[in-house]
């Protein structure tokens, strides 16, 4: 029932909220094209900071490393998250479930400094087993803190899914494995994609946890960015930020379009079904 009007005050609040959320990002993009090194003085249009960014060997190497870690993190976190979501939604009762669901929700809110410090101390304790600190330790740390987010995304889809489709497949003689792979998995696949992307961005953005568990030769992109912005405003970082915002916007636009198309198709199917 949406016949209750949205009041003007509420709309105004929404507008102010969005200005607050987006103004800083827009200022980053605008000043990434600034000729002047002083970020707040407009010196004319220029692409020089983008050129400088791509010539910055250290930043490019770190970016490549971060993308690799993010890719591997997202893939592992999606597999573990799918398993955890199945456990949470489909196994209502088993011994240790309370602890398990606690292990899923706690990482969602745990301050990063605590996660980072505790994982580092674990890696130091396991020194002989895990080898030195580096990409492997960052990957393990990132998988650990992103699994919770992926699990929440997948389990909410799994929960609202219509189980009668699975029942139908089983009644038609498909075994559990077949049913899972040809019915359940395709239905929840949008949430797998969403979870993968979420883990990818969380891993790509992480500064604090990576700083704790990284070795001296495994500097990630946020660590390089952090050390350069700590010294003040740097136009190269503005260029990097703009590229990141561009990538996220494209991703969002594509996923919105896919959702819109899926919604249309579902509506059409429903109409067809109603007509028959």
């Amino acid at each position, binding site marked *: 029932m949406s016949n209750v009007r949205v009041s003007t005050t509420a709309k105004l609040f*929404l507008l102010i909220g969005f200005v607050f959320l987006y103004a800083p990002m827009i200022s980053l993009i605008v000043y990434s094209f600034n000729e002047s090194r002083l970020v707040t003085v407009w010196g004319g249009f220029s692409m020089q900071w983008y050129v400088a960014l791509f010539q910055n060997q250290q930043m490019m190497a770190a970016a490549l490393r971060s993308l690799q870690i993010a890719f591997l993190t997202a893939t592992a976190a999606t597999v573990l998250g799918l398993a955890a979501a199945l456990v949470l939604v489909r196994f209502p009762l088993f011994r240790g479930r309370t602890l398990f669901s606690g292990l899923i929700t*706690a*990482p969602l809110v745990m301050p990063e*400094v605590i996660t980072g410090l505790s994982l580092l101390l674990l890696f130091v304790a396991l020194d002989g087993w895990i080898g030195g600190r580096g990409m492997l330790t960052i990957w393990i740390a990132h998988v650990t803190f992103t699994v919770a987010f992926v699990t929440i995304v997948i389990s909410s889809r799994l929960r609202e899914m219509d189980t009668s489709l699975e029942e139908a497949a*089983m009644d038609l003689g498909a075994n559990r494995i077949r049913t899972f792979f040809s019915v359940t998995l395709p239905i929840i696949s949008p949430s797998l994609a969403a979870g993968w992307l979420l883990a990818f961005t969380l891993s790509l953005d992480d500064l604090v946890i990576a700083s704790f568990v990284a070795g001296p030769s495994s500097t990630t992109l946020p660590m390089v960015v952090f050390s350069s912005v700590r010294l003040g405003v740097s136009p190269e970082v503005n260029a990097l*930020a703009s590229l990141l915002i561009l990538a996220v916007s494209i991703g969002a636009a594509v996923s919105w379009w896919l959702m819109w198309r899926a919604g249309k198709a579902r509506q059409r199917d429903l109409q067809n079904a109603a007509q028959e």
Partner: protein
Amino acid sequence: MKGNVSRDWRRWLPPRHWLITAIPYAWLLLFFAVPFLIVLKISFSEAAIAMPPYTELVEYVDQVLTINLNLANYAYLWEDALYVSAYLSSIKIAAISTLLCLLIGYPMAYAIARMDPATRNVLLMLVVLPSWTSLLIRVYAWVGILKNNGLLNNFLLWLGLIDQPLAIMNTATAVYIGVVYAYLPFMVLPLYANLVKHDQRLLEAASDLGARPWRAFFTITLPLSRAGIIAGSMLVFIPALGEFVIPELLGGPGNLMIGKVLWQEFFNNRDWPVASAVATVMLILLIAPIMLFHHYQGRELEAARR
């Protein structure tokens, strides 16, 4: 026909479900739960010039087993005013920021929940989108806006509202702006998820019975959205309490937060036992909020299940 179909969930499980439970369970136990025990252990040891830089708790030399429980780190935290005031100011900053997020986020979530479904999805995506770009970069954007010769001061000077730049950068105000900015989406999302489920007929009934919109809001909508308010508040309060990046980039030396203190103990002073004690005390402070979050999050999930 339908009566014959078993409602037992277990039938639809993929096989070997113990393996499906065991893998994520073992991962999280080993990499999330066990590390806390190690933090606790090291918080009772002494700093040493060695690698790793702390003493062992349990020693077995010449058939003598000695267990050294060193409480000095905790005593040090208690006696040095720096730590106590850092904890207190972190709690204060996190609490006020949570309240500000609620005051800004509630009307936003409310407005979005009242839109038609197509608009809702677009607006919701616009709320989430910023948190998909790096937090570090978004906080850094505020440096360019808030500093003395930054965008905000230039704008206000140009308007003639002020004669000289406001000193916002490196103050508590800047930290509040940063925290509210970074965590606002985490407040809006659970509030929206709650508000969108409300039955609008309740408000119609209230209005038919003569209640003014504000009265209806305070007696119906607000109490019904309690679970969303608590979930959103905890999603902001808990991580904000241990925030490092925001006080580091926007705050000044006066705005000590415990996450930054922990970082400095670890990276600058290389005192792992004290850093562990700082983390342990922070965890103890956070147990109640985390349980509260877990309870309400679980309840929301249960509600979604029905």
